[in-house]
């Protein structure tokens, strides 16, 4: 959904900072997302995307800075903020030993969706992601694409205002990837739901997003529409724009050192 010029901001991030020990994972970033927008948050591995998403979704408290999510501060009003978004994590988060339906039911109860509405929504969502005929199968028997579709459906049971998708198409074949973007686009257009996504597939981001922010080394390099980004970097596709802004060096190093710092911090906290 193309949001109007004066649509209000549903996410506002100001001077957000996150440090793990001496390591700065997110360095004073500011950006905003308009209501009803498809927002792509792009960056190389270890750039700070997942850390930012964790702070937006109450899993981590920022070192400093301010977040407003649906007009709520997620580190103060955790539970209210949690009701206003749904999330599909980068890695698997289903219970494999439960059936598809039971996973949906669990989520519905946890988010306080009343029984009757829960039943209706689970049915319509499972039909939407074309898993209704597999509802009583154990998740462990599902393929990667089916699990992803189920996770997306699950994230929607409580009708969130914002849907966070951390690399929803990672490791899937092109058919499934297209399929999943179709679902997401449809939700965005029909329900007016704000979508906050990360992906490494630049062509996909270019095709579906209204607005893009590129993050690297914990800093926002650029924010704008895909067209604006291409224009300002004098490139003709988002992938080239991305490479021009973030360089060609491989980033596995920074990811693993960030992880090492996190583990250290965790270890010390645990020992105290």
């Amino acid at each position, binding site marked *: 959904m193309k949001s109007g010029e004066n649509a209000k901001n549903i996410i506002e991030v100001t001077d957000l900072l996150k440090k793990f020990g001496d390591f700065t994972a997110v360095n004073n970033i500011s950006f905003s997302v308009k209501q009803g927008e498809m927002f792509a948050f792009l960056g190389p591995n270890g750039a700070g995307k997942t850390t930012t998403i*964790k702070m937006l*979704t*109450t*899993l981590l408290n920022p070192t400093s800075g301010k977040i407003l999510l649906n007009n709520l501060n997620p580190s103060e009003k*955790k*539970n*209210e903020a*949690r*009701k206003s978004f749904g*999330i599909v*994590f980068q*890695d*698997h*988060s*289903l*219970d*494999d*030993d*439960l059936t598809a339906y*039971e996973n949906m*039911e*669990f*989520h519905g*109860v*946890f*988010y*306080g969706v*009343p*029984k009757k509405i829960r039943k209706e929504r689970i049915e319509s969502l499972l039909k939407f992601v074309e898993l209704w005929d597999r509802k009583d199968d154990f998740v462990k028997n599902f393929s990667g694409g089916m699990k992803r579709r189920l996770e997306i459906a699950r994230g929607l049971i409580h009708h969130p205002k914002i849907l966070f998708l951390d690399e929803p198409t990672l490791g899937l074949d092109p058919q499934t990837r297209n399929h999943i973007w179709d679902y997401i686009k449809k939700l965005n257009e029909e329900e007016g739901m704000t979508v906050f996504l990360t992906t490494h597939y630049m062509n996909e981001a270019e095709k579906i997003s209204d607005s893009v922010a590129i993050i690297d080394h914990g800093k926002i390099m650029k924010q704008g529409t895909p067209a604006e980004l291409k224009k300002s970097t004098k490139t003709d596709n988002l992938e080239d724009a991305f490479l021009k802004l973030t360089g060609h060096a491989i980033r596995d190093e920074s990811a693993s050192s960030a992880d090492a710092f996190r583990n250290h911090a*965790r270890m010390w*906290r*645990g020992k105290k």
Partner: protein
Amino acid sequence: MSEGSPVYIMWLRQVKQYLRSKGRIIGSLGQPILFLVALGFGFGHIYAQSTGGNFIDFLAPGIIAMSILFTAMFAGIGVIWDRQFGFLKETLVSPVSRFKIMWGRTLGGATTALLQGIIVLLITLAIGFRPSLVYLPLAFVFMALISILFTSLGTALASRMEDMQAFPLVMNFIIMPVFFLSGALFPLDTAPNTLKIISYFNPLTYGVDGIRGALTGVSHFGLLLDFGVNVVLAGIVLLIGSRMFSKIQI
């Protein structure tokens, strides 16, 4: 606990996982059966000669407590499992307080430990244990209390651990002394003083004594003290465990 409550659905999940895993149920019966047969029949004569009693009657409550101890402590591994396979995130990002998540988990794990204890009780009956069934409900109360006590302990420890391999090692490090020094295998009345004193500081001692008192009428401390100690300990560990679980980091 209504049908739509998070504590209930968390409990239901734990119990479903247990009932669906036939291997887990059957596999964890091996150890109690081994103890019952090897110790019960092996030492039976010596015990009968020195005390005039039936060793199976003495041993059975201890083995029931043992199976509960093991199942309950290992229920904690679910936290590490869920962390590894991502489901923990799904619960921690939800608008449900972590206390409730912990309670649902603990009640679920405790239920499976209690079921395991009941299965072992049935096995002891088959082997020749003849308890007085009048106080059976009271024995269930003690079984439930130690189930809750040790499930919250296991869950609390697991919420501070990320290493799947370390968990069983740490657990065995705790479980073995707790089991052997609890009076599950030998009568405290005639034990040397040092051993006796150590066992007084062992939470399982009061659980074993309570179950034994209810089923056979022979108790070292008296059922009231056993009950009091178990209730207080279960409450304290559940509270501390909830606090530890609520601080969990992803």
